[in-house]
């Protein structure tokens, strides 16, 4: 059972579907297109409110011309140990200035979610049972002292320029 979680809680009636050969978005749903398909669609129409899924080997900077037409970018973690999406998220937020929903999809585990939040991911497609239970209990295993600036808004940390503390208000 997959659920969408954001820091405000679980999201009901999420419309986004990653299309495959077998799975297509219904009338009530919206497709998360692959990078090439998204670019093709954006080039041939003026449609906005689009969604895209970035795979680990994709060049995320190709999204730059279309960012204002995207409601959501999903970054894929095909396995927990494939960390490329952390860099994709960092580039989207810090380099490209993308401000809409940024979702982690794939192998999304409880111990990684605090790190994903810090690089600017703010939406999580979660299947893992432990992760779902701990999120429901609002028990995130993060470390609220940071030694590096990242995409997520934070307070200046004690003493040195590279340190950060959680933002006082969300």
């Amino acid at each position, binding site marked *: 059972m997959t659920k969408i979680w954001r820091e405000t809680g679980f999201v009901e009636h999420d419309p986004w579907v990653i299309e495959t050969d077998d799975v297509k978005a219904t009338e009530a749903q919206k497709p998360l297109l692959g990078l090439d398909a998204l670019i093709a669609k954006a080039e041939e129409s003026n449609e906005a409110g689009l969604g895209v899924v970035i795979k*680990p080997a994709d060049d995320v900077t190709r999204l730059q011309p279309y960012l204002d037409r995207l409601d959501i970018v999903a970054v894929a973690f095909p396995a*927990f*140990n*494939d*960390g*490329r999406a*952390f*860099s*994709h998220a*960092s580039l989207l937020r*810090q*380099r490209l200035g993308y401000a809409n929903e940024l979702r982690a999809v794939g192998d999304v*585990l409880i*111990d*990684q979610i*605090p*790190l*994903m939040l*810090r*690089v600017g991911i703010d939406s999580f497609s979660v299947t893992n049972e*432990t992760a779902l239970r701990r999120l429901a209990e609002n028990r995130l*295993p*993060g*470390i*609220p*002292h*940071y*030694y*590096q*600036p*990242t995409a997520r808004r934070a307070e200046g*940390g*004690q*003493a*040195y*320029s*590279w*340190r950060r503390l959680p933002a006082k208000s969300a």
Partner: protein
Amino acid sequence: MYRYDEFDHAFVAERVAQFRDQVERRLSGELSEDAFKPLRLMNGVYLQLHAYMLRIAIPYGTLSSRQMRMLAHIARTYDRGYGHFTTRQNLQFNWPKLSEMPNALADLASVEMHAIQTSGNCIRNVTADHFAGAAADEVADPRPYAEILRQWSSVHPEFSFLPRKFKIAVTGAERDRAAIQVHDVGLHLKKNDKGEIGFAVYVGGGQGRTPLVAKLIRDYLPEADLLSYITAIMRVYNLHGRRDNKYKARIKILVHETGAEELARQVEVEFDKLRDTELKLPEADVQAISAYFAPPALPERPEGWESLARWKKADPVFARWVQQNVQPHKNPDYGMVTISLKPIGGIPGDATDVQMDAVADIAEEYAFGEIRVSHEQNLILPHVALADLEAVYRGLVAIGLETANAGLITDIIACPGLDYCALANARSIPVAQEISTRFGSPERQAEIGELKIKISGCINACGHHHVGHIGLLGVEKKGAELYQITLGGSGDENTSIGEIIGRGFEPDKVTDAIETIVDTYLGLRLDPSETFLTAYRRVGPQPFKTALYGASSSAAEAA
């Protein structure tokens, strides 16, 4: 030395709590061993042949007496009374129970230590010259930069799931004692023509099954750009490093396959976007961190010159120890002492709780409470007055750590090998012990001079055999152990990878083979000042091949 502030204390305490929660989930069965593995690895916990192993970080190899006593306490309380100092300046305990590890980590946290990122595919403990702050040939102390990198890389969210592990080493001297050219990133502190501190940046060195010497990708990086430039390297590696084959996943393979020039270009493009961001290091921060590493105030102790001469005359064994294990300090009244953890016939790098406690006491009394771990698996007292050398020596004799062999043939680096390690193909420790015993006589070692033997029990090369003047690699052939010999490797400022000399030797023949090589060297050197490495570089492998395999060896190979 760096001291934790409130922020660091809070961070480490939170990390211990986080790991305690993970261990509890593992022990309750909620986490499978497979799911637990990446979590425990991120905190230095390996599953070895017989038990879990805990690897404790000793940042850039610097320890206080208080910290050393805590390591002794952990050896006593959670292990079997000893620990093993590693080639990455860390300490490994081989027998702690998983259920007790959170308590051991809490004990460590009380003395500002941890096991964070001592394993896993993340940025590992940053290493540095073990003579930092004391060596006469130093441009600047590398440890403040290593400390800044340690902090910045701790639980870095973008770089915690890299293609493979990532090792950074920093040196501040022309003589490279940190082996920076066999690290993923090597930083060499230097000054530009305006006298400003910066770094030469090397990338893509490493050992393992594909040994490669690092490439210089930037001749001078300003100090303020350290974190932006390293972030640029990490990001290029995280996005483009190979993930399809763990043996091709290190950055050295990316550098090799992409080409150093193209990789440097990609890094520069990323760096250009990062250099004027919040990653820029303010001068005040560098100064504040550097202040922690200010050398101790060294009182003038000129009386040591005369006393030392007298003691040496009275006791030739002491004189030999001074000759071999004490190096000149930048203050002429002081010396840098190497405490050899290579007793003749012993296990390289091992120390007991009693020895650790005693070294802590000696350091406190005579060496400003400061101890280093060298990547050659020895301990260092970086600031000892010549006038105190005799007392230090007597203290070391009392605990059996007075072996006068620093840099000599019995100062062997060896990995834990098949006695402990789940990856090993062959044993390393018994081979080191036998070689050490064979060459143990002080006169013979002195005659041979500087000669570094390094032994790895498998292709992963934890024993650094590729950069041994003589390297031994244990392999498994048809169910039996065999040792392949390489010659001419070196891990200093003139780094070279050793060449395989020929077919391997059985365990009971390998010491004889080493002896043949040594005798061949003694026979062909120009004079006793020509070291093994210099001689090898002059004559090449053939005389050694002939001695080992017979006169027909070159013809046979050509055929």
